[in-house]
């Protein structure tokens, strides 16, 4: 294994080793302050390691790692956010007694979520996916409030459901393969010709859509992300949802294309994009609005990948990663901004609000920001059909939602006393915010294949400006509806599902009754004989 391979390996192993070291008390006490260091190997790997580098762990681990372009883009952005949020966390949570526990969950989630971007074999993909999913539970319920608890339960139920779908899909994928733990690339190559193709793809989409939060499987997301402490919300909404994106990128056969499933993804994505906006606008808490914005943005990503799958365009993976990294950094910065704003008041408020506004509107596609770049980069692939317009309208929706967000945070911060956030929080935030503005520029030529100059042409600017104007207009309209705020509860349809639990309760109570009956001696004796007679008769007939 050469230096690049070692660096790749270290990006998974360092956080894992740090989590393991937390068994030792002295380390545990200081773990929180080291959170910012853990993702550094991954960051370095994303910057330095050339595309196509692979590494293989010998048995019994049998893990193979591979860095390709979408992986590298996502890894870099994610590592940056993890590092900055980690630094933010050490200042934000420093005095909490349960900080050590938080650090352990953090490191485990970090391991899983970063590892997913580079792992190349199917078993370890599942392992890391599970690690990221389950460890995130610890982050969500960290504050131990009733809200966090409810969010945690909904999250765990759906996360485990996703695990089950994916496990079945992976097993079906690997079933025809001679190797017990094949490389993802190999199984995906043979996927289009598999007899169980449609079942596998359906399960994959279900599993990853749950993770991404596509409607109607998004219900956990607006509950869970706001429930976590601020830095954790940032990484959950910024990075951990991308586990679903990287899953779709890795496992769907973009080279061969599957038009039907592509269209399914497009449809689900469009619905999600609008749904997120519509419900988000009714929310009154800043973090919840951001979470709904994440739902909406994941919908846009799904559309992007769906188009790629529909048209058998493998370039969609890079574009998807590009869009995703933009969202990672911006959304991370926005969540951190909510934390900063809460601690900032009076005179210091204005610059912070200004930067927050810039970041927020970037999601809507403000010209010259990463949002605009991402939208422009993806335009050619979407073509000029209805999908393109739908996406543009969704951009308007994003603008609307972000304006709503800004109005809420501005209102919340108005009453703050004269103060400013600690430097330990400001600097990480600024780093993320700055990189969200800079990194997409540096990647743009490679991804879009166009020069930066082309971005500044009026036609290109108009393409991104008109949805924003539309969004602004919509905002004016929406503000007039006074009943709107708070009209839809957080987590929307999960409330309906929770109403259905009484049915499940009754079913379970029924099962309990049956158990009491079956455990009666005479009934058990009778069932014994019945089973015996059944067995005997069947074997006799055989």
């Amino acid at each position, binding site marked *: 294994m050469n230096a690049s391979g070692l660096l790749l390996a270290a990006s998974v192993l360092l956080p894992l080793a740090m989590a393991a070291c937390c068994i030792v008390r002295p380390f545990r006490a200081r773990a929180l302050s080291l959170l910012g260091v853990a993702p550094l190997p991954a960051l370095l790997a994303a910057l330095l390691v050339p595309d196509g580098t692979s590494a293989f762990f010998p048995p019994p681990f049998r893990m193979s790692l591979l860095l390709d372009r979408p992986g590298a883009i996502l890894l870099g952005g994610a590592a940056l956010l993890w590092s900055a949020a980690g630094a933010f966390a050490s200042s934000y949570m420093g005095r909490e007694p349960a900080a050590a526990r938080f650090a352990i969950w953090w490191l485990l989630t970090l391991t899983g979520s970063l590892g997913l971007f580079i792992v190349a074999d199917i078993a370890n993909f599942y392992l890391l996916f599970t690690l990221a999913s389950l460890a995130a539970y610890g982050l969500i319920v960290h504050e131990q409030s009733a809200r966090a608890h409810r969010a945690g339960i909904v999250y765990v139920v759906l996360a485990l459901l996703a695990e089950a779908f994916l496990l079945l899909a992976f097993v079906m994928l690997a079933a025809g393969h001679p190797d017990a733990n094949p490389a993802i690339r190999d199984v995906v190559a043979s996927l289009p010709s598999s007899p169980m193709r449609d079942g596998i793809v359906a399960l994959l989409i279900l599993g990853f859509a749950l993770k991404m939060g596509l409607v109607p499987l998004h219900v956990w997301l607006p509950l869970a992300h706001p429930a976590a402490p601020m830095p954790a919300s940032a990484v959950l909404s910024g990075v951990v949802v991308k586990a679903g994106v990287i899953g779709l990128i890795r496992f769907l056969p973009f080279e061969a294309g599957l038009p039907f499933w592509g269209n399914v993804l497009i449809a689900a994505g469009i619905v999600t994009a609008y749904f997120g906006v519509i419900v988000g606008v009714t929310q009154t808490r800043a973090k919840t609005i951001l979470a709904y914005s994440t739902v909406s943005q994941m919908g846009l990503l799904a559309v992007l990948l769906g188009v790629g799958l529909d048209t058998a365009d493998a370039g969609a993976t890079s574009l998807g990663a590009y869009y995703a990294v933009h969202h990672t950094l911006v959304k991370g910065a926005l969540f951190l901004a909510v934390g900063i704003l809460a601690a900032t008041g009076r005179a210091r408020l204005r610059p912070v609000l200004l930067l927050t506004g810039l970041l927020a509107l970037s999601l809507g596609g403000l010209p010259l920001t990463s949002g605009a770049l991402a939208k422009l980069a993806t335009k050619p692939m979407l073509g000029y059909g209805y999908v393109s317009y739908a996406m543009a309208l969704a951009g308007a929706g994003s603008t609307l939602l972000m304006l709503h967000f800004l109005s809420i945070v501005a209102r919340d911060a108005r009453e703050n006393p004269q103060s400013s956030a600690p430097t330990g929080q400001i600097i990480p935030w600024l780093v993320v915010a700055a990189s969200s503005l800079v990194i997409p520029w540096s990647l743009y030529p490679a991804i879009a294949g166009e020069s930066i100059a082309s971005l500044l042409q009026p036609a290109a600017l108009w393409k991104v400006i008109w949805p924003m104007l539309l969004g602004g207009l919509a905002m004016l309209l929406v503000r007039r509806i006074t009943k709107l705020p708070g009209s839809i509860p957080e987590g929307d349809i999960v409330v309906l599902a929770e109403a259905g639990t009484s049915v499940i309760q009754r079913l379970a109570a029924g099962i309990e009754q049956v158990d009491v009956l079956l455990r*009666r*001696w*005479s009934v058990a*004796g*009778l069932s014994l*004989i019945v089973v015996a007679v059944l067995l005997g008769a069947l074997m006799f007939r055989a």
Partner: protein
Amino acid sequence: MSLASLGTATLFGLCGAALAGIGLFIVIAHAGLLRRIVGFNILGAGIFLVFGAAARRGAAAGFSGDPVPQAMVITGIVVAFSATALAVALLQRLFDLTGRESLDAPAASDKQQAEP
């Protein structure tokens, strides 16, 4: 098949089958634990008779029966006795502790505990 053509062995084998059925019935359908223990013994007796039928049918080489199943029955009888003894001891202990001789009424026992 007429009765006379049945050998002694088969007759007792059939008797064993019937005894096993009766024993099984007692075990399943009686709530009284002591009676169930008796039922186990009758079931066991029926089973041993099946072995006995096999043994008697296997008369050969100058022996009036196959000694292997006979030996198994002897072992089986002793094991059955130990089981009976253990069951009776448990039953007596249960009776000493609770004053009842039934397992099938957990609801009643809850009431008993709740009353005082």
